[in-house]
């Protein structure tokens, strides 16, 4: 598995109105090498910021983040070839009119031949159970299908790491299970940000983030217990 390393990585944002800076994520030092890594925490705790740093969507204000030795701040493009990312609302990341065209878009950099590119895109859709929706508008899909298509679009480029931010938050029980099973069947290293405590229990290692700090780092059951206790006390 690629090594994801945070070295005293910190995120601050300047607040021009107040003339001061606010810390979104306090210095974090972590080395992530497990295949399934979960991140849980309350809304606004900083867990999405932590996840977004892994592929350079958010850059550290101080310290560094590296993936397989590549610094996300200096080698952003190379890091993003290694790290795929999906968002809570897949509608924002589907940019082409039809399903097959959206997957093809991800393949433009790696598969130059048009006929082969389409075939690879169709094969990818078939793997995600979307073969029959290939020529359908991305706006005509159900929530579960959109999330699957977003995953298909990212995984078609064959990244080594998948970071997924609350992939099941907008889904019903059936689709939550389907997407969850799919995520945990992938060969890629998975970094899963979620509020779904059942899903995160399937991870090898779980980070609990509260108030911009990684306040617990350990095995899934202990991490969930810690999180529930923190929320109950709070």
């Amino acid at each position, binding site marked *: 598995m690629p090594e994801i390393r945070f070295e005293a990585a910190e995120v601050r944002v300047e607040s021009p109105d107040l003339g001061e800076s606010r810390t979104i994520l306090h210095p974090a030092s972590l080395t992530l090498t497990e295949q399934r890594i979960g991140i849980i925490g309350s809304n606004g705790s900083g867990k999405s910021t932590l996840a977004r740093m892994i592929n350079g969507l958010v850059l550290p204000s101080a310290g560094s983040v590296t993936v397989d030795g590549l610094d996300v701040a200096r080698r952003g493009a190379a890091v993003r070839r290694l790290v795929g990312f*999906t968002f809570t609302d897949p509608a924002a990341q589907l940019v082409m009119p039809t399903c097959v065209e959206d997957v093809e878009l991800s393949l433009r950099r790696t598969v130059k031949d048009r006929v082969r590119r389409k075939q690879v895109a169709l094969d990818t859709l078939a793997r995600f159970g979307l073969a029959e929706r290939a020529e359908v508008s991305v706006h005509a899909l159900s929530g579960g299908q959109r999330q699957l298509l977003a995953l298909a679009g990212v995984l078609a480029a064959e990244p080594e790491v998948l970071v997924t931010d609350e992939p099941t938050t907008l889904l019903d029980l059936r689709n939550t299970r389907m997407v969850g099973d799919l995520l945990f069947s992938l060969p890629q290293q998975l970094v899963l940000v979620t509020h779904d405590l059942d899903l995160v229990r399937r991870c090898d290692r779980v980070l609990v983030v509260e108030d911009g700090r990684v306040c617990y780092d350990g095995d899934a059951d202990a991490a969930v217990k810690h999180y529930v206790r923190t929320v109950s006390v709070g």
Partner: protein
Amino acid sequence: MSMTVGLYRPGDTVLHRLPVGAKLLGLAVISVAIVALRGPLLAVGFLVLAVVLALVGRLDLAATARALRAVLVIAVLVALLQWWLFTFDRALESLLDLISLALVALTLTVTTPTTETLDAVVRWIRPLRRVGIDPERVALTIAMAIQALPGTLTLAQETRDAARARGLGRSPRAYLTPFVIRVVARAHETGDSLKARGLGD
């Protein structure tokens, strides 16, 4: 409505089989001719040509009517203005020309996969790489523009529904303000997602 506006429909018509370059050239020639050649009779002729092309491409009648509805509203407003300012003939010509232009463009998008258009654009502007223009980035921008229309219409529909659900269906402010905010927010999210997918790096 938003789901199928200008969406490619697979088919085996002559227009589907034509190379994308020929189709884009044809669109350019017809568009210039519609704008340059004046007179209501010629406008009727161009509308007939546009309808014939749509029939050859086997465009779905209901989807076409839905897609043209918004254009028709604008075309009628423009025609009324032309009638008021100039003559009835000029107003009629404007109305028919706008409908013809929209129908010809719609026929192109319905019979041509977006990816095919992007490949052609990338091929044509590849020499511009020497002056620092990235063909893939230009192609991506075109793809975004094509996708922006149905995406924005979906946001408009959702925002209108939300305003209605709160009993504010008749208030333009309750609809327009959140709509503009949502469009800007969606643009930011889309930018993030493109970056996350390594597109445009």
